[in-house]
């Protein structure tokens, strides 16, 4: 009965995390221009489809290689493809107490694709689709799972004296995507028209209702993202996790809205939306360890960080159309460090472990994404031509329009 309840809950969560891809697509479309809508949808659809296939072929077994006792815990590979554990010819249901092998694969597979979606938003409206797809295959297919094995796969970060803690992926998913987004944005350059005479210009999104729907869908998906990371249907843990998740989202939104209204002097809905996401990313590292009060702090600080980060990134002349770097990288790091500052695990040792983890992932992600993207830049180029960018990627990369008569 225990397995049945756990497995059903995990499958529901799998579906919720899957649904987040709708949220990403809507948010990205809403905050960019009409003429690039097909391109953005294509990227998002490519990510979830290729991501799942890659996870089945190599990703799952790179992420959970089953490190041997005393191994370095940096790289392991359990073989190509999926192989269900069998006992007497039937699926071994004692695989773990929580759920079946298949559920494990699919749930984790849904997370994998998220890392590339983060980059998709940051490079929107100017990156060539071919190189983006190659980047996705390499980053989601190989970099994400190898880095994930360091913690969730039982690798060296899990082996630390005070293990590095990342409940649902503030670091493993969000900052992994965030670092790559930062590197890509630097190497790609700003959109044409974004910087004029050294001053940042506004390029408003074309469908704010869709962006709003996207954020609410992402929030809904987070019920599965965090709720499922409990890895069981334990009533106490799952219900607490959902509460901390929602409270952090709410606090993130409200504080980002207050801060942005004071700083920018208008009630900007997109900052409110980014704040909600920042709160969600921030709580993701420790949602099961925090009290509701802790969640308010974590969400509120995330909201303030969002406003600071968005203007700071603008001031650096880096063009991030959807605020992906602020939401996923900055708040991902914050959420990770917060585990050492708030909640049941708060301690100096934990904080140090969190720092080690943040540093390890920073180094690895920067190097990996730099190699991939710089390599692509040299070999094929990563940016569309000026003419294509001005007319819109839909016409040139896809030969179709998102909003035909």
């Amino acid at each position, binding site marked *: 009965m225990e397995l049945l309840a756990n497995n059903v809950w995990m499958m529901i969560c799998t579906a919720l995390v899957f649904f987040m891809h709708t949220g990403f697509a809507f948010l990205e479309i809403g905050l960019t221009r009409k003429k690039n809508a097909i391109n953005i949808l294509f990227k998002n659809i490519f990510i979830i489809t290729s991501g799942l296939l890659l996870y089945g072929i190599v990703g799952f077994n790179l992420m959970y290689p089953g490190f041997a006792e005393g191994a370095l815990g940096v790289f392991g590979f359990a073989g190509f493809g999926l192989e269900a554990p069998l006992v007497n010819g039937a699926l071994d249901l004692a695989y773990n107490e929580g759920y079946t092998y298949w559920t494990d694969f699919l749930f984790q597979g849904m997370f994998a694709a998220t890392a590339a979606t983060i980059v998709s938003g940051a490079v929107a409206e100017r990156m060539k689709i071919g190189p983006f797809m190659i980047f996705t295959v390499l980053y989601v297919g190989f970099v994400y799972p190898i880095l994930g094995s360091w913690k969730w796969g039982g690798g060296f970060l899990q082996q630390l004296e005070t293990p590095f803690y990342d409940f649902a992926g503030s670091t493993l998913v969000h900052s992994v995507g965030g670092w790559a987004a930062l590197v890509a944005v630097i190497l790609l350059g700003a959109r044409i028209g974004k910087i004029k005479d050294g001053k*940042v*210009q*506004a*390029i*408003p999104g074309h469908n704010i209702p869709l962006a709003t729907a996207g954020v609410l869908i992402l929030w809904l998906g987070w019920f599965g993202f965090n709720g499922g990371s409990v890895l069981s249907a334990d009533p106490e843990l799952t219900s607490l996790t959902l509460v901390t998740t929602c409270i952090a989202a709410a606090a993130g939104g409200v504080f980002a809205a207050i801060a*942005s209204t004071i*700083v*920018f*002097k*208008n009630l*900007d809905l*997109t*900052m409110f939306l980014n704040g909600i996401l920042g709160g969600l990313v921030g709580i993701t590292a420790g949602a099961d360890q925090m009290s509701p009060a802790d969640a308010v702090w974590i969400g509120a600080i995330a909201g303030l960080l969002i406003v600071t980060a*968005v*203007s700071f990134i*603008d001031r650096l002349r880096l063009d991030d159309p959807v*605020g992906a770097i602020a939401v996923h990288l900055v708040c991902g790091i914050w959420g990770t460090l917060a585990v050492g500052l708030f909640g049941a695990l708060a301690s100096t040792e934990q904080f140090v472990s969190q720092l080690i983890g943040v540093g390890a992932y920073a180094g690895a992600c920067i190097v990996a994404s730099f190699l991939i993207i710089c390599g692509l830049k040299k070999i094929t180029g990563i940016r569309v031509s000026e003419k294509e960018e001005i007319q819109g990627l839909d016409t040139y990369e896809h030969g179709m329009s998102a909003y035909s008569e």
Partner: protein
Amino acid sequence: MKKVEAIIRKSKFSEVKKALHEVGVNFFSYWDVTGLGNEKEGHVYRGVAYSTSDIQRRYLSIVVNDNFLDVTIKAILEAGATGEVGDGKIFVSDINEAYRIRTGEKGGETLN
């Protein structure tokens, strides 16, 4: 026969339409345009302030017989004005011929 082209505020359209019907002008074409002029709207997007004088307007194209010209213009001027910068413009030009497509008739009978 004269063509009256009026660029008016979108918000004033239903009033102008009603005023035109009241003087017997019952058909015309209209479409949405973006106007560039003296009125400016202040916008802020994600912390970047920009003022735009590109504002959505509505463009009416009305072809009338000469005896309807004055009432048409008067109706638009009264219904379309707010007194603020950005109320719009009216242009009057000559029309050489007019036809009704359904019957093939031509001339002033086919118009308002």
